[in-house]
């Protein structure tokens, strides 16, 4: 049982770090703000949230597991909100998409002012 918990903890930690590392690569490699947001707000969030779950699994205590899941859901639920707000603010302020973007649906769907 102890070994299973340790393996689960190690797996959660390693998967979380891989997600975070992928996000760190993506935030440097993607061409513009809106594509970088894919990496930062999806992969980065899942990476650190998995490591929070790893703490709860490692402790093998229901109270700590509950707290770690509270942190998990809090972080997973707030990251899309902040990312959406930031993307909307940047788009409304006029920050351009990269040159290789083919479609800007927010721009075409908006009523012409």
């Amino acid at each position: 049982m102890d070994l299973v918990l340790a393996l689960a903890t190690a797996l959660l930690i390693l998967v979380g770090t891989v997600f975070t590392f992928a996000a760190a690569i993506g935030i440097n490699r993607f061409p513009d703000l809106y594509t970088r947001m894919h990496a930062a707000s999806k992969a980065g969030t899942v990476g650190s949230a998995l490591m929070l779950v790893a703490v709860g699994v490692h402790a093998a205590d229901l109270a700590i597991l509950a707290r770690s899941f509270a942190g998990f859901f809090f972080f997973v639920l707030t990251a899309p909100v902040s990312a959406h707000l930031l993307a909307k603010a940047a788009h409304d302020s006029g920050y351009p998409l990269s040159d290789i973007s083919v479609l800007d649906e927010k721009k075409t769907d908006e009523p012409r002012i």
Partner: protein
Amino acid sequence: MTSAAITQFAVNVGLFVLGVSFLLTVWRVIKGPTLPDRVIALDMLVGIVMGFIALIAIRTGFTLYIDIAISLGLVGFLATVAFARFILSRKARAGEDGTRPPAVPVVPAGTAAPPAMPKATKPKPAKSSDGKQKAASARQPEDKPKTKRKPATGKGET
């Protein structure tokens, strides 16, 4: 014994990879051409630090660190929301860091102005040769914004 070694190994590898990720993200904060780029990189730095805190919690056994990570996530969320409101209220200034194409032709600063001037002069001699040469040539050396002057000269001629 072996289970503790497994956890310890995973934590050490995780700390190393998180450190590399942290440095890569800091590079984006430094380099990021626009303010939203830096804000999204700072938002991700908060996530990486939360991962650091979780790994330290596993390593030391102080599970109280989870509460610190939760409150750090709350602070990061509020900071990102505040920055989004700030970006929305500030509006992007044209020509910021050279990434934003100027929407209005008047806006470009010193860098964009020199290439624009020779382009503006070239079409004018062709038009002036067709129309009234003396009036156009006389006004060109005086006033540099030629595009606005042209319709005025055309109206005066007619």
